[in-house]
């Protein structure tokens, strides 16, 4: 599974840059953003497959970024990676449609594994939607591709 586009979002620049380098060494295409606003402008230009998102950042909180992403770009899979991982945060992130929730510092192979699984699930969803579209069930196809938060 080459060419998975990943966007890392965290205000700790040293952390993001080092992690980006390690992910690139594992054949992932990685871009970085240092706050929520930057992440949202980035996805307007280039849509990543997977976003790895911190929660506590100055400015826009990660939970708000997640909410906006799920609404405007439901095909981006979001993995929360945070040092501030309370159970409440985990429940909320999953309720908003976050793909997974990891606590910092995560083992690199675990993170890479989660990214690949998230990407695989995105591909499978797209293929299911195509199959429905081909059989004329356009509404179902649209629903699959536009899954929003489960309130």
């Amino acid at each position, binding site marked *: 599974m080459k060419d998975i586009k990943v966007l890392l979002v965290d205000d700790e620049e040293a952390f993001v840059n080092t992690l980006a*380098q390690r992910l690139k060494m594992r054949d992932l295409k990685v871009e970085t953003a240092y706050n929520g606003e930057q992440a949202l402008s980035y996805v307007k230009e280039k849509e990543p497959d997977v976003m790895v998102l911190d929660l*506590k950042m100055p400015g826009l909180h990660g939970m708000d970024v997640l909410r906006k992403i799920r609404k405007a770009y439901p095909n981006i899979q979001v993995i929360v990676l945070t*040092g501030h991982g309370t159970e409440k945060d985990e429940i909320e992130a999953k309720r908003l449609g976050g793909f997974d929730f990891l606590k*910092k510092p995560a083992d*690199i192979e675990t993170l890479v594994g989660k990214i690949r699984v998230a990407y695989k699930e995105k591909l499978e969803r797209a293929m299911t939607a195509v199959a429905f579209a081909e059989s004329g069930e356009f509404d179902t196809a649209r629903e699959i591709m536009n899954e929003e938060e489960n309130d």
Partner: protein
Amino acid sequence: MHNETEQALRNLQLIFMGKILAGFTHEMKNYLAIIKESSGLMQDLISMGKSSSKKDAQPLVPSLQLIDEQIDRSIHILNHLNRFAHRMDRPSSSFLVHDILDELMVLMSRFANQKKIILEKDFQKNIPAIISDPARLQCLIYCLIEEKLNRLDAGSKITLQTSSSKDHILIRLVPKGTTLNKETENGLPSHEVLQEIIRDLHGEIAHEKNEEITIKLPLSQE
């Protein structure tokens, strides 16, 4: 100062300390995450590097792995400390007694190790969550363990046991070893204060002959 005002100020101080501690643990985890990624990157560069430089750098690998191990240890204790700090956020909540006991055992393991006393658990599976004041309960158990740590001889053991019935949870503190019959002056609260805490939690405490202590707590305070 009136008693109520003093109590309110005490609560405020606890919330303040909890917030500062939670913020501190969060920051520390961020710093440790950077160190761990940097150490990981060095290991990646060594293992994925060219064969000649790989051989030269190989002796560094054990030291880098040691850094990782120590970071994992630090994160483990910081996670417990973070949850401990957050327990002061709300005076009453639903929680698992095992969580707060596990947390205490981690946070008190250093005190026990220094006195060469073993802290161990014997928990009944599937104990239901209770609605109570977790920080206060934790404080009570801390006082009871600390008192035993001060009076037990080196080589002794303290076991925390749990069990449950239809509407109660039992926590038993079972010491094994030689108990020194000495009064300790270590700032621990008096018997009356401990009774007051247990009354606040709507529970009961029983001190048995063989130095065992049993705490009975309702599943809910309503």
